[in-house]
């Protein structure tokens, strides 16, 4: 199996509603298994290209891997299993999270916000002092 085969498997699993965390972990394990199979064959003197072909055959083609995974409905994502509920819950969760967004963004960008605040304060003090000097000049001038 080439890298693009694993990527195709990943895309097909996600399209069929398998939860992203299961997809990610399955791919990590399959790729590791594939490397072990290639290693096993090359250790016995099989040329690398043949070893890769044998490893791919033993691991199974994309369709058989898909069938095995799709036969476990419990691995499907929550939203795929309950689409109507997801349509209600996800927007509601986003709506509830909305007020927290500025706080989250503020925490995330705290150093930039602190610098911006300090600059704004300094600019204000400078402008105020200039106005004060001007005012004093007018009064005592």
């Amino acid at each position, binding site marked *: 199996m080439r890298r693009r085969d694993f990527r195709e498997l990943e895309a097909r699993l996600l399209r069929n509603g398998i939860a992203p965390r*299961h997809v990610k*972990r*399955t791919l*990590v*394990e*399959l790729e*590791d*298994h594939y*490397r*072990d*199979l290639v290693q096993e064959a090359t250790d016995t003197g099989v040329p690398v290209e043949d070893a890769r072909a044998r490893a791919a055959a*033993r*691991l*199974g083609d994309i369709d*058989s*891997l898909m069938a*095995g*995974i799709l*036969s*476990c409905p*419990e*691995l499907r994502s929550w939203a795929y299993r309950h689409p109507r509920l997801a349509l209600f819950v996800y927007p509601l969760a986003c709506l509830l999270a909305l007020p927290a967004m500025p706080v989250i963004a503020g925490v995330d960008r705290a150093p930039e916000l602190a610098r911006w605040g300090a600059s704004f304060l300094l600019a204000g003090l400078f402008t105020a002092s200039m106005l004060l000097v001007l005012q004093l000049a007018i009064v005592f001038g």
Partner: protein
Amino acid sequence: MAQSNPPFMSGVPELLLLRLLDQQEMYGYELVRSIRKVTGEAISLGEGVIYPVLHSLERNGSLKSRRKAVSGRTRVYYSLTRKGRDRLGKLQNDWLRIQGGITTALENPSHA
């Protein structure tokens, strides 16, 4: 050409995985090799098909997993939980009961 497994094999991979993991923690490739070894290659699993079974068993609490870095690679090792041991006991009993029944039927077809 290797013989394919008959349709009544459903549930057997689960039993074998639980049995092997009852002895020690293992990762996928190691498990497939062990299955081939302990069954004398009588049972051939599509090697990639083992992972959804492992994930399902973990999801229902029969297995737990941990990631371990080995030679620059991250492997997922599985081990049995208490619930998994209970499940193994039940599956073993079911298997032995069915096996006994079928053996009796095959040896004494006139009583069937």
